């Protein structure tokens, strides 16, 4: 009697559990729609905000915040003593002195410079900032440096002139003048044609990684500003060489938020004074830039004189669809990292877990040290080691294709360590009676593991594994460390090119939907495993 009623009660309980789960699913869909509408709302507001960039520059200005890319010598960079120095910073310091402002040097991520400027976090972009092609995006000072884009190759390279670049891999800094010279709206027909003949035009976030790539052999040439090129070649010795032929000529100016003529005029006035009393040339001499300066010369005030007109408007839906389309390649790249990492790290984690729990103390320690290193150092650093390690340790030249493999290898090695520990906790939670029952029934160790322990472990580790998988979705963005263009890197590039934060919100939406699907799949698996306890 008792057993029968006990069984009934169990049936009722499981029925109730199912109802609860059903209710939870509905609740999640509602939550999802809610979040979706909020995000869409924010995007709409952001889209509108783009054009209402009217600055109010107060009379009582006390500070002057200069935004710069801290890796752009000699204009602005971090020297050997860890100080931010450079030609532009010296100029700005003098301008501040003359106006009685406190000078604040604010290094910014180059891809985010427009958001920094539009939000008022910085007052200007002053950092070897090319006017050409950006005339309508900012309120400009007059040009003060004339610069050209040049190509750097290894000293022993057989590339002698620009046409030799066809079939080669060329690297440029993301959103740099060099990139604009090849792919921008105002790029010359010759450059566009040349660019079409490259095997690949890659983008990196800073010149240091560009030179590492060139040294390692994964790219054939770097295209950059002449001032930077001279500085880098001087600093790095004769391992590199500059092509005589130039890709383009261009001018540098100081970029202010569109419409902020008041501040621009004050800075321009001070610059003109400095030119008149010789301070400007003195500073240029200090940085060996006297060959490039052009302040006050003819043909430098085209951007300065233009009307601070309003930007062209695009319908919201069209812009949204356009950006989603441009990001789709990045979405696919992120998805590939995700799938391959899971495919390799989950079995590898089981192997590490077995070594970690082996009878041999030596093996146990090896696994312990591996896990400790993988969990104790940043994934970004591990990715760099995997990619550049073959060159710096063994002198092997790394190919451009290795980039993707390095991302997968780095991610898999890292995630395997986490999975190993999750599996171990799952295995250790299984009652010792299960092993004893298996032993008495005569199962071998291998049979005991695969038939009895492993299936029960899988059920136990689903919740922590779900956490890890969701983290992985977001971690795919770390592939940018190897200049592998996944979703987030691409969103930042598009955001910089469009001067809009909409791509970033679309990226966020992508991650959210991705993770929503992951959570649903994991919940379905968990539900499927609920047939026993």
């Amino acid at each position: 009697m008792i057993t029968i009623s006990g069984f009934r009660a169990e049936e009722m309980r499981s029925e109730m559990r199912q109802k609860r789960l059903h209710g939870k699913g509905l609740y999640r869909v509602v939550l999802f729609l809610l979040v979706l509408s909020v995000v869409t709302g924010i995007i709409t507001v952001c889209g509108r905000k783009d054009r209402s960039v009217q600055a109010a520059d107060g009379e009582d200005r006390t500070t002057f915040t200069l935004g710069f890319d801290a890796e752009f010598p000699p204009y602005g960079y971090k020297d050997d003593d860890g100080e931010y120095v450079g030609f532009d910073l010296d100029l700005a310091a003098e301008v501040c002195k003359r106006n009685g402002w406190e000078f604040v040097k604010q290094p910014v991520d180059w891809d985010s410079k427009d958001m920094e400027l539009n939000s008022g976090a910085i007052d200007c972009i002053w950092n070897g900032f090319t006017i050409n092609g950006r005339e309508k995006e900012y309120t400009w000072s007059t040009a003060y440096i004339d610069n050209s884009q040049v190509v750097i190759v290894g000293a022993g390279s057989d590339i002698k002139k620009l046409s030799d670049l066809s079939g080669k891999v060329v690297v440029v800094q993301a959103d740099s003048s060099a990139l604009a010279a090849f792919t921008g709206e105002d790029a010359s027909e010759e450059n566009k044609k040349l660019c079409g003949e490259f095997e690949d035009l890659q983008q990196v976030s800073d010149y240091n990684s560009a030179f590492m790539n060139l040294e390692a052999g994964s790219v054939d040439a770097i295209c950059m500003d002449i001032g930077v090129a001279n500085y880098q070649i001087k600093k790095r010795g004769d391992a590199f060489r500059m092509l005589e032929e130039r890709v383009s000529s261009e001018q540098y100016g100081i970029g202010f938020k569109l419409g902020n003529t008041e501040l621009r005029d004050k800075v321009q006035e001070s610059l003109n004074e400095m030119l008149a009393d010789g301070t400007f040339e003195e500073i240029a001499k200090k940085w060996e830039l006297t060959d490039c300066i052009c302040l006050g010369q003819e043909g430098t005030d085209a951007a300065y004189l233009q009307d601070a007109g309003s930007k062209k408007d695009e319908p919201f839906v069209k812009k949204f669809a356009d950006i989603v389309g441009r990001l789709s390649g990045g979405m696919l790249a992120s998805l590939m990292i995700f799938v391959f990492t899971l495919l390799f790290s989950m079995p590898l984690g089981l192997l590490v877990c077995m070594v970690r729990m082996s009878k041999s103390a030596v093996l146990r320690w090896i696994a312990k040290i591996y896990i400790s290193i993988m969990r104790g150092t940043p994934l970004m650093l591990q990715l760099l080691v995997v990619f550049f390690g073959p060159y710096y340790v063994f002198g092997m030249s790394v190919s451009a294709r290795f980039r993707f493999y390095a991302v997968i290898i780095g991610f898999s090695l890292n995630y395997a360590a986490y999975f190993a520990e999750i599996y171990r906790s799952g295995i250790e939670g299984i009652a010792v009676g299960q092993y004893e029952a298996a032993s008495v029934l005569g199962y071998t160790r291998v049979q005991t593991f695969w038939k009895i322990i492993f299936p029960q472990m899988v059920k136990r580790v689903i919740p922590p594994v779900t956490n890890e998988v969701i983290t992985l979705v977001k971690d795919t963005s770390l592939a940018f460390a190897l200049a592998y263009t996944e979703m987030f890197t691409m969103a930042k590039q598009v955001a910089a090119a469009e001067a809009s934060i909409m791509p970033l919100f679309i990226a966020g939406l992508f991650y959210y939907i991705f993770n929503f699907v992951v959570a649903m799949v994991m919940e379905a698996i968990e539900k499927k495993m609920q047939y026993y306890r």
Partner: protein
Amino acid sequence: MKLLEIEHLKKSFGGIEVLSDLSMSVSEGEVVAVLGPSGSGKSTMLRCASLLETMDAGALRFAGSTVAEDVDGRSVYVGKKEQRELKSIFGLVFQNFNLFPHYTVLKNIIDAPVHVQKRDKEEVVQEARALLKKVGLEDKEDAYPCQLSGGQQQRVAIARALAMRPRMLFFDEPTSALDPEITAGILRILRQLAEEKMTMIIVTHEIDFARKVADRVVFMDGGVVVEQGRPEDVIDHPQNERTKMFLQKMEV
């Protein structure tokens, strides 16, 4: 014929001696109940006999075949492979049943005969169904252990042990995790097995249970056998002081 022989078994855990010098043997067809207070070492004895623990010293034989010999006061076991073969002589029913939760009742019973003993699956399934009928669970073969009551799980555990066709069965406190009224059902199954001349060693602290099923009662205390004999002698007319004290406490 002696199915189980234990000679001068010694076992310590972390320097504390649990079994000091224990010897006992069980003949074919015999039903032995091992009684004693908790901490007397009766479960440890059974775990040594079922190879879940290794003996520090002493010898162990199954049906005359050596499992471990005493060499200069230390137990020396035969190889792992031989041990696995010798193991098939006994089955063990645990206090906590230890069914595999992710397998159905039927799969719990047939998996080891099919994958360890490599017997024909059809034949094993037939036999498993007969065993389920014997323990009164013929309608539960597709249920999972979590859907069964404790008494039902214990009956499945007995069927699982019997499916391996052992020559003797060990029971480690088979009823202490169960309600008293369910104990009666288990007792009925044990008596039926006794009638079929199954050799059984039952570790228990239930005197009534021992009296009703055993041919011989072994009373253990402090790691040694204190007294043994027919149930009516040991339980109703104990000779040893420690046996008397234990029985008095249990009656209250």
